[in-house]
């Protein structure tokens, strides 16, 4: 059974706050995050026929967002090769004065992580997914997820500690 576009649309509307949070943890600012969420929602609606009734809609949407984010990173990397180094099309990161310092500092530290570690952290620590659900969303075995998560945690803790030292000097 396939849900009607209206039904899926309303279910997605209900998930938008979580989709924005997940997107925010993968982006440097809320504007880029909302662009990412928009692309993911458009893709989800276009491919809604692939969604199996009874499956977990949020996992499916997070998976689509993960792919959209990686596609965008690849496209930016390609553009950066042929354009000026700073012409990435990204909006600048928020400054500490713009928002709460906690979001800013954690977001900056996340931005330093390799993509696969950042995704693992976003699924488990930001979205609170179980290892099993996170592995499904990221389409990787659980063992791979846990090793990325462990390395991501170590790197993130180090980045946050660095930042504290940097702020003190």
């Amino acid at each position, binding site marked *: 059974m396939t849900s009607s*576009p*209206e039904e899926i*649309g*309303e279910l*997605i*509307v*209900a998930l*938008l*706050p*979580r989709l*924005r*949070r997940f997107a*925010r*943890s993968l982006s440097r600012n*809320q504007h880029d*995050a*909302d662009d990412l*969420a*928009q692309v993911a*929602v*458009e893709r989800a*609606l276009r491919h809604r026929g692939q969604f199996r009734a009874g499956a977990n809609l949020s996992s499916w949407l997070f998976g689509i967002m993960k792919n959209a984010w990686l596609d965008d990173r690849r496209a930016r990397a390609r553009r950066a090769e042929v354009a000026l180094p700073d012409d990435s099309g990204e909006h600048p990161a928020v400054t500490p004065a713009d928002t*709460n*310092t*906690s*979001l800013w*500092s*954690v*977001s900056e530290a*996340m931005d330093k992580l390799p993509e696969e570690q950042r995704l693992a*952290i976003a699924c*488990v*620590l*930001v979205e*609170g997914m*179980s*290892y099993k659900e996170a592995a499904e969303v990221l389409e990787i075995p659980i063992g791979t997820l*846990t*090793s990325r*998560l*462990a390395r991501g*945690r170590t790197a*993130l*803790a180090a980045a*946050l500690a660095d930042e*504290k030292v940097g*702020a003190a000097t």
Partner: protein
Amino acid sequence: MKYDDDTLMAFADGELDEVKRAEIAAAVENDPELARRVAQHRALRDRVAGAFGPVLGQPVPERLVNTARGAEPARRGEVVQFPVRGKPPGMPWRAREWGAMAASLALGAVISWKLLSPAEPLMTASNGSLVARGALAAALERQLAGTQTEADPVRIGLSFETRDGHFCRSFQLRDAGTAGLGCRIAGEWRIPVTTEAAAGDLRQAASPPPAVLQAIEARIAGEALDATGEEKARDAGWDPVRR
């Protein structure tokens, strides 16, 4: 017994089976070094979750809502208040997660919230933790879930023992709609997570909001205390050793 970091991480994330969980909980109690490593995992988790939590409470841009409903994209920059589930559209979304505040305390800022009366802050920051004060601290220390009344400013929910040997209690502030978890550590009630509950959640106060539930699930050892266990723990001063 040595435990590798992956095992301690899985323990901190609530991912181990019962047997392994109990084994590590016991080891953590007797080994300050293990306890420190588990606490580090939890602190990072709380900090990251707290940093991004407030995004949930922000108004969702109208262009996203329109896209989900299959409409033409709206102009950028327009926002709508996200409707609370089960409420008519137009109700402001009030579930703001306050975990970020607890996390930002790592910066050493001293902040206080005057949630009930201007004279009496219910939580203050102290040494990087959010700590309960005033009526909230009193309720966490003395109030029993079974005998509390509608008139009490704080409503106590679940009380339980954590895997690393502390007691925690979930709570909700009746007036402010703030919910959270208080854990008694080193003689004070620390608040690892607080959430501003949506207005609609207040009426179904029996069930803590998702952010608090998640914090409970990440910490609880076994079952929540029943009324007898709760009273005993209170009378023992929330000291697991003396219980």
